[in-house]
């Protein structure tokens, strides 16, 4: 009832004790395209859906390497996400320089959260409109954290953010108990299957998703299209005509891609808020 009177700036409380600007910022996260993170004892996988603004453009990068042992996937205002990734890279490299040792993920995440909190308590600032899934490895093991625009952060075994992330979360909730002891390959497969849930009907192709892995003795890196397609092929039944050409090889993409982006362009415009561009 009072929403519109108390939502003009972030330093105004509502009578019911809410900061609406912060909650609106969290809405922006829900409008971005999906990002998913899972972890096992020794590995963390971050995956996201590649949303392109139009058929003509390339898709936005939503997963960033922060250091060899830390990666971040974002959902929401990508520009805000890039700025925060740059901050994380800076903190990580400064720590490495002074201590010749990798920064532990938990400490990085707290600094990030404190930075976000500042923006919820200054009248001349606005909250960052981006949710971050920070995955990393340090001496206490593999970790996955979710950082909110509100300045809160939580640790997760697996999580999904962005549009249609609820479908992915349902999938992950069913299977999360097995993740801790999962092998690297199973973890990647679960990530891609969770991505598939968010597509809700669209055929899953390697061009539609980006997957990254980091783990013990495996620095952060992206999986190439071929590897992703191979995993997809293990569980995706091969649909009729054009997919035959694309099966197992990344090359004959022309036919499938034309069909894929056609579908994407239609649903994309409706679901993605303008600010994500």
């Amino acid at each position: 009832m009072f929403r519109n009177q108390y939502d003009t700036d972030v330093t105004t409380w509502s009578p019911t004790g809410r900061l609406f600007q912060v909650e609106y910022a969290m809405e922006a996260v829900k409008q971005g395209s999906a990002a998913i993170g899972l972890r096992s004892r020794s590995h963390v996988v971050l995956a996201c859906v590649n949303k392109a603004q139009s058929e003509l453009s390339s898709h936005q990068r939503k997963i960033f390497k922060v250091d060899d042992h830390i990666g971040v996937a974002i959902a929401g205002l990508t520009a805000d996400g890039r700025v925060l990734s740059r901050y994380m890279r800076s903190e990580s490299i400064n720590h490495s320089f002074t201590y010749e040792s990798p920064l532990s993920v938990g400490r990085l995440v707290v600094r990030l959260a404190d930075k976000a909190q500042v923006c919820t308590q200054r009248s001349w600032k606005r909250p960052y409109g981006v949710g971050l899934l920070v995955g990393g490895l340090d001496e206490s093991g593999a970790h996955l954290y979710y950082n909110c625009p509100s300045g809160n952060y939580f640790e997760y075994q697996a999580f999904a953010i962005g549009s249609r992330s609820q479908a992915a979360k349902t999938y992950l909730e069913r299977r999360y108990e097995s993740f801790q002891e999962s092998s690297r390959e199973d973890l990647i497969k679960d990530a891609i299957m969770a991505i598939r849930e968010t597509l809700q009907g669209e055929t899953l192709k390697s061009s539609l998703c980006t997957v990254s892995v980091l783990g013990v003795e495996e620095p952060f890196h992206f999986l190439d299209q071929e590897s992703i397609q191979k995993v997809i092929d293990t569980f995706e039944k091969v649909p009729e005509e054009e997919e035959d050409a694309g099966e197992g090889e990344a090359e004959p993409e022309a036919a499938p891609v034309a069909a894929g982006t056609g579908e994407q362009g239609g649903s994309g415009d409706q679901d993605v808020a303008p600010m994500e561009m």
Partner: protein
Amino acid sequence: MTFTIQIENGTEVRNAEADSQRTLYPYVTGTSVVAIKYKDGVLMASDMGGSYGSTLRYKNIERMKAIGKHSLLGASGEISDFQEILRYLDELTLNDNMWDDGNSLGPKEVHNYLTRVMYNRRNKFNPLWNTLVLGGVKNGEKYLGMVSMIGVSFEDNHVATGFGNHLARPILRDEWREDLGFEEGVKLLEKCMRVLLYRDRSAINKLQIAKMTEEGVTVSEPYSLKTFWEFKAFTNPTVGAEGSW
């Protein structure tokens, strides 16, 4: 350097007085520190003397201190600068503990932090007049390193500062082995410290030995070495040169 300028952030006004704020020479100094890696960890030895120029003025100075759970720092050179460094490290370990998150600073991190501190001070022409030895064991890995007052830093299996470089390291080069047991290691260090006691005028016969292993860091109680002064050449030193002393 007696020019006068006002730096924009207002914290520095350079003039003649500012020179007295920089370290130009040391006053109360500690002599050598010797350290070796051994089978179970790292051993370090130093005496407890603080010299005021040529006077052996202070005889109860602990020149080795534990840092956090895993490391030990030994220092030679200006004692007040060593105390300043201990204050920096105190703050560092305090902040590290406040995170309360299962991560802790190991000897490698402390060594690199100190390297940064020493090098930055050197760049400002205001050095901490110490040569530091940093040793420790974390997660089964033994670490032993050294930082000088100009920021030169390295790791090795055995290190020594000051006179120890000249008198102790040749002994260590000959006799150090990877698989020294605890008693053998202590005997080796005592051999080095005895030579230093005979030949370094700033050394006193009251030393401590520190042990760093996976279980933790301990510094021994002070004790003294047995010495032998009855060499024939000492009994009548001027026998070959009448009139000399």
